[in-house]
Every structure is written in C-alpha cells, then in structure tokens.
C-alpha cells in the first residue's frame, strides 16, 4: 500500500503558511502509536504505545483497526475499526489523522496534526459535553410558535373552513382531523342526538344566537304557556326557546328545574297578572296553595258535564257525585267478606289495577270486579239465569220472556199463581187457548213484580240509584241513574302512580274508613308534603314546580305562533 503521511509542524494563522514534512511508505500494514518503532509515531500520553494499525481492506479501501482497548474516534464516533474514506478524520488522543483523496499514485494520504487544545488528553471533554438544555437545541421560542400555530390551525382555522365549505366539513367530520365537532361544548339532550354533528341544523348563522324557528321546525305542536292576549307578558311573547332550553348540558340537561322558572310570575300573581285570579305559588314547602281538585257533576237539563275546581280545604264541597253506592270500608274489612267461594279478603288491588303506562288506574268493570258476589239472578229457584248488566230495557225483555216461558211450561211453585201455571204438564200435553191466555196474563204481571223487586229492592239498588218511570204504553219502567266517576282529579298537575309504587295505597288513600262513595279519597297537600319539599328540602324529595306541573299547557296556542320579533 503506497502511503503518504504528511505531518503538519505549524500553521500561521495570519498568512496561512504551513510547515510540514512528508513520509512515504509502501508496506502492507502501517502501525500507529506512541512507541518509537511505530510507522506513524504520535508522541503524546493520550496515545497508547501500539494504538492502531492501517491496512488495505478487501474492497481496496484502507481499514484502520484498534490495537489499544481505548479505540479511536472517526468523525466523532468512538470505534474499534473503520473503513476509511477521503475526508474522514481519525482522532487518536490529541492527534488528528485526516484522510485525503488518493493522488500521485498514493493509495492512502494522511495529514497528521496535533491539536493544540488544553493541557490534558480530556481537555475537550468540556467542549463536547452538552451541559445545559440550551445546548441540546431544545428551544422555547420555536416550540412556542409551533404549538401556537398548530392549535390555531387545527382547532380554529380548519374547523372554520369546514363550516364555510360544506364539502370540506363533511370530509372533516368523517376524519380524525378536528372539525366543528371539536367545538361541541357538551353532550346534547338525548332526543337531539338525532341531530348528531349537524351543528348548522340549529346554529344557522355564525355568531348569531339560535333562533326559535330552528326549534319549531320540529317542535310544531309544542303548546304555549298561556293565552298571550290575556297574559300580555314579554316573558311569554318575546322569550326565545333557547332562553330556557339550553342544550349541550347532558342528556337530560335541557329542562329548566329552577324555582325561578315559575316563581318569577307566580310568586305574586296579583301584581304580575292582576286579571288572572291565580293563587300565589313559589315553593312547594313555603308557598303553595292547597290542592284544588276538579269535581265533575252532570247538568241534566243541558245534558253536559259540569266541572268545578274546589280547594280541598273546603271540606263541605268535598263530595263526589258519582251516583254509585259503594262503601269502601265494607269491602275492605280486615276479617274478609263472604263470597260464593267462601270468605275473601279484598284489598285495593283486587279492583284497582294500574294502567300499562302506570300513571292511572284501569276502569272498574262490574262483570270483572263485582259480579262474583253481586250476582244478577232474579228467580229464587233458578240460580243460573241472570239479567244483563248495564241495559235496563233488556232487563225487562229478559224478565218478560222468562216468565212467559215458565208460565207456559207450568210447574212453577207459587201459591199466588193460577192453577195452570202451577200444574206440572205431562209430556206432549197441550194447553187450551184459555189456559194459555190465563198463563200469559199471570206472566205479564209477574215480570213487572220481579222487575220492581230487582230494580228497587234487591239487585240494582244495592249499588245504583234507581228511578221508577212509566213507559209510553202506561206500564211501569225503571231507570238506573248513570255512574259518573270523577276521572281527572288534578287537571293542572301531573301525577304518576308508577313513580310511587313503593308506597302502599293506604299511605295516601284513606279507603278503609270511607263508608260512602261520596267521600273524596284524593290526598290533600299535607300528605304530599310528608315526602316532598321545595327548594330547601332536607331529608325530603326536592321537588321543584316542574316536578308536578308542566309549562307548555295552553292547548289552544302553539309556541312560536305569536312571536313579536320574528
């Protein structure tokens, strides 16, 4: 390997003049070390006696291999062996060996120079050590700018472009890149999940509050609160839907439950609504009128239902006019009642079953609930035949036909009946014309007697009011006064039996002690207050107005129909 080694003796930093001397070798292996016999002698304690050797490698490239365990650095990397390329700088201790481009027939040219740094082999440790964070290149300023711009672009500009250009917005919403969905401030109300990420459905124009027509587009049938002409209040006519209904507050966060919703106007209605004749209400515990139940009666002349709201404090008026005779106490006797199948103990649920929705009770049905005990038989020696329930005319038809048949059949045991009726007939025996007339005459009297008996004294009258009337042909008839049970006691409030199903019926309804169906068994406000309280509930159920009352109740007017500002 023809090698030229050029030792730099000195350099003039001003003129650039270099003093050097060259050595030439043509040997296979060039040794590098502190030892005097080394081919390239590096006279310094930072170099081992026999430090390294350079020879020609397989790829016709010179290779340097360390002999000393301390190794050497090539281009700043600590190595034990390295292929040498022109331009490489080998550092051995304080010496540098620079590899030059082969020229003039030399396969390897090395420029050897002693670095004049410091006074020890590790003098450059200080220089090569990064001892502060600045030196690692981590900058505050550059990072600040990068982060500032990144956040601005990703979370403001990109989503905004998505809003302005719908096709981009569509793309963004389908990608993990932030869209205007990243601006979503919270979960939508459950029903609004159908809108999903279509922000523009409600937020029609940027920087403008949501307008009502965006709401009413879907909520067409939402009722107003009150007649806007009668209650010409700005709060009713000018308030935006979103003033009360603010979305993005969780799945059930859209309904106002604060007492102010109602009390702002209803606390002192004489001032806020002088003509309204409303009672003041502010808090279920502190200020709430006694319940006013709606009692219905029937105006016979006008033939219509008459409703009246009556305060439950007015005890004299607490009378239900149902026309039904039903003492709860007799039926609920703890020792039970006699029934055809023996003694039976009835409870409320024997007759009152909740509707599937759970709010109210299914209607009482005579056949289903009463008939087992209250049979409609009319003939003492016939336990099977019954009159139909609910149709007075048909009752008389049934009786008339029944007794005609009995009279013609004969064998009817009754001393006051004529012979022809009492007499048993032989099979195939026929009655004469006179006999038939006599028998039917008896029957036409008998059925009216029995009719009077069951209507007025034995069957119908047990539960019903019965009036005696006269038919067009002059014969007597009877009329059962229709039963009109009160259906809707509290028309201004919402009550559900289902949400009270852990209670017993007796907790609220004093049926055990009621001996007449005229008793109103709806509990008054004190009963509810045992568990429910207003805003400052302590160990009670906190019950804001909206717990029992609705806001949108005026069924003649729709929300949005009478807006002054749109």
């Amino acid at each position, binding site marked *: 390997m023809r090698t030229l080694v050029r030792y730099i003796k000195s350099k003039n930093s001003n003129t650039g003049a270099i003093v050097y001397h060259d050595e030439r070798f043509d040997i296979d292996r060039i040794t590098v070390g502190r030892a005097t016999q080394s081919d390239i002698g590096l006279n310094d*304690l930072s170099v*081992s006696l026999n430090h390294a050797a350079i020879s020609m490698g397989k790829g016709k490239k010179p290779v340097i291999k360390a002999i000393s365990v301390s190794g050497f650095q090539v281009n700043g990397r*600590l190595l034990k062996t390295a292929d040498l390329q022109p331009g490489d700088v080998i550092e051995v201790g304080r010496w540098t060996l620079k590899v030059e481009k082969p020229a003039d027939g030399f396969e390897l040219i090395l420029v050897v120079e002693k670095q004049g740094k410091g*006074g020890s082999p590790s003098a450059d440790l200080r220089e090569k050590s990064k001892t502060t964070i600045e030196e690692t290149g981590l900058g*505050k300023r550059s990072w600040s700018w990068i*982060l500032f711009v990144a956040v601005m672009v990703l979370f403001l500009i990109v989503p905004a472009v998505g809003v302005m250009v719908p096709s981009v917005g569509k793309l963004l919403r389908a990608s993990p890149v932030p869209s*205007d969905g*990243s601006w979503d401030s919270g979960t939508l109300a459950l029903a609004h999940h159908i809108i999903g990420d279509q922000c523009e459905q409600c*937020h029609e124009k940027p920087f403008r509050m949501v307008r009502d027509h965006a709401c009413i587009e879907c909520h067409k049938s939402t009722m107003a609160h009150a007649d806007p002409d009668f209650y010409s209040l700005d709060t009713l006519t000018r308030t935006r839907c979103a003033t009360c209904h*603010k979305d993005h507050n969780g799945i059930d966060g859209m309904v106002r439950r604060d007492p102010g919703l109602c009390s702002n106007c209803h606390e002192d209605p004489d001032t806020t609504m002088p003509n309204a004749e409303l009672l003041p209400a502010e808090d279920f515990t502190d200020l709430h009128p006694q319940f006013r139940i709606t009692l219905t009666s029937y105006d016979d002349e006008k033939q219509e239902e008459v409703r009246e709201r009556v305060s439950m404090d007015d005890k004299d008026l607490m009378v239900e006019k149902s026309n039904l005779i039903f003492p709860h106490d007799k039926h609920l006797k703890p020792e039970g009642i006699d029934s055809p199948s023996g003694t039976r103990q009835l409870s409320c649920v024997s007759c009152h079953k909740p509707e599937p929705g759970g709010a109210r009770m299914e209607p009482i049905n005579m056949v289903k609930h009463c008939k087992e005990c209250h049979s409609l038989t009319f003939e003492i020696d016939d336990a099977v035949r019954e009159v139909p329930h609910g149709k007075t005319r048909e009752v008389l038809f049934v009786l008339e036909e029944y007794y005609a048949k009995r009279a013609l059949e004969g064998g009817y045991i009754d001393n006051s009946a004529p012979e022809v009726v009492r007499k048993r007939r032989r099979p195939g025996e026929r009655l004469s014309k006179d006999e038939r007339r006599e028998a039917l005459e008896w029957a036409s009297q008998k059925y009216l007697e029995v009719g009077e008996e069951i209507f007025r004294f034995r069957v119908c009258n047990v539960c019903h009011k019965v009036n005696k009337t006269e038919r067009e042909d002059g014969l007597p008839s009877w009329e059962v006064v229709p039963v009109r049970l009160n259906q809707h006691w509290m028309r201004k409030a919402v009550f559900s039996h289902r949400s009270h199903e852990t209670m017993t019926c007796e907790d609220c309804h004093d049926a055990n002690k009621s001996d007449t169906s005229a008793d109103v068994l709806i509990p008054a406000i004190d009963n509810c207050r045992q568990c429910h309280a207003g805003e400052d509930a302590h160990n009670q159920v906190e019950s804001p107005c909206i717990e029992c009352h609705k806001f949108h109740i005026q069924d003649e007017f729709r929300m949005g129909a009478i807006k002054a500002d749109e």
Partner: protein
Amino acid sequence: MHQSFLVYKGFRYLKVALILSALSIFAYAVYIPTEPPNGGTWLGYTLGTIGALLILWLLWFGVRKRKFSRGSATTQSWLSAHVYLGMALLLVATLHSGFQFAWNLHMLAYSLMVIVIASGIFGIVAYARYPSLITANRESQTREQMFEEIANLDQAAVTLAAQIGDQAHQIILRSINRTKIGGSVWAQISGKEQEKEDEMEEEQLVELATQMMPAIGSPNAPTMAMPSANADPDSESTLFFVAQNLAGSHGQERVQKLRDLLDIVRSKKMLVDRLRRDIRYHGLMQLWLYVHVPLSLALLAALTAHIIAVFFYW
C-alpha cells in the same frame, strides 16, 4: 435585604388571589343558574371573562420581565402577582367550566392551562429547592473548575498508567474516552445513561486490576483467589481486594503506583458524579420553563379558538 417573591410585601398578592378565589367560590355557591352549571350562564360568562383577562395578563409577564426598567412596578412584584394570580386562575377557570368536561377544544384549553400552571408550580418548587442543593453540591467550585479538575485527574491518571504498563494505559485512555458529561435533555435530567457509563467504568477498573496480575509477575499470582470482573457486584471492594493482594507481592513500586491510580480514578468518579448532579439540578431548574412557555403560547391559541368557537355557535 433579599426578600422572596413569595412573601413580597407581606403576601400582598397572595391576599389578592385569595380574595378573588373566595369571591368566585361564593358566587358559584350562591348563584342558581336556570340550567346545569356551565360556561354559558351569567356567572359562567363573568368567570370566563375574568379567566381570559387573567391569562392575557399572566402571558404579559413574559414580555414584562424582559423590560427591567420600564413601568413603576418591579419585576419582583410582577413575579409575585404572576405566581399567586396564576394559581387563582386554576380555580376561576374550573368554576367557569361548571365541572363540565368533555373531549373537545374547550377541554384542550383547560388542560393546557392546568399543565402550564402545574409546570409553574414546579418552577416555584425548583427555585426554592435547587439553588441550595446546587451550592452544597458544588463545594464552592465552578463548573469550569470541575471540568478542569477532571482534566487534571485524567492527565495524572494517564501519566501514571503509562508508567505502570501499556495495558493499564489503554484502559485508562478508554475510560477517559468514554466519560460522558451531560448529553441529551433526558441524559441531563435523569442520569440514566450515566449510570450505565459508571458501571462500565467500574468494570474497566476491575479489568485493569485483573490484567495487572501477570504484569506483576508474582509466582503465586495464578493460584490467587482472583475474582473475575463479573463475580463480585461490589466492584470497588474487589479493587481493593486486588490491591491488597498485590501489596504482598514484589514489584512494590508498581503496586504503589496502581494504588495511586485507583485513588485518582475514585476521585474522578466522585467529581464526575458531582458535576452530573450539578447539571441535573440546573436542568431541572430550567426544564419546567420549556414546558411552561411553549404551552402557555399554545394555551393562548386554544383560548382564542375557544372564545371564537363558543360565539361562532352561540
């Protein structure tokens, strides 16, 4: 006399911050919004405005501290206010959120704010803790002096090693070559890489002692209970075990030199450890700012986006 920014003017800004916090808590407790508590109620808007103004003002500290002479207030008073009002901001912003957290831009702004405040608190702790540790660790040497002493020790070690023998010299050279101070941010702060290096250094030294045995030429050397480099984890005691054994054999002068060399290497190791601790302490004192400053700029961007976004979809 020096007065910490924490106690500046009898905790003036601590009091301001506490009053602001107390007022915020009081308002939050008293105000009953018509909807679940959130940033869009009247109190939410109020607290949000206060919070946003606080953030702008706190960011202005970065500008203000570069202008020592301007304005009537001292930089120390600014720092005191910056620290206490910054901590009050955490409460104001949390109440502003109404504790509604979700995976969105608003949460991003909040999270950035929390990280910035947390890094600031770390900064306070660092400024309270590390200066005294640095002073104690340095033993009244400067960093330059420590480097110089390391260089001197290396020089002494390499000279001594050359006198002992070529192998010893090679090992010492390798040890010097491999000594690393500082490095990447993680290396500066954690010292993990350095631990690895230290272990290597120990191994090299045991190796050195092991290799000294044939050099002494003791007739009983091969039979001596010579622990290998890996056999005894407590390498230092291994070294002295070796040194003790060597002392009994002939070649007293070289043995003495080896002992001296070992002393030098130990001194260097202690010095290197001290220097690394110094770098670690300084690094910790600086590093929080590399979180605090860039993230506060990111917070400014997120805050801007937050405010625009909420009114964009009003």
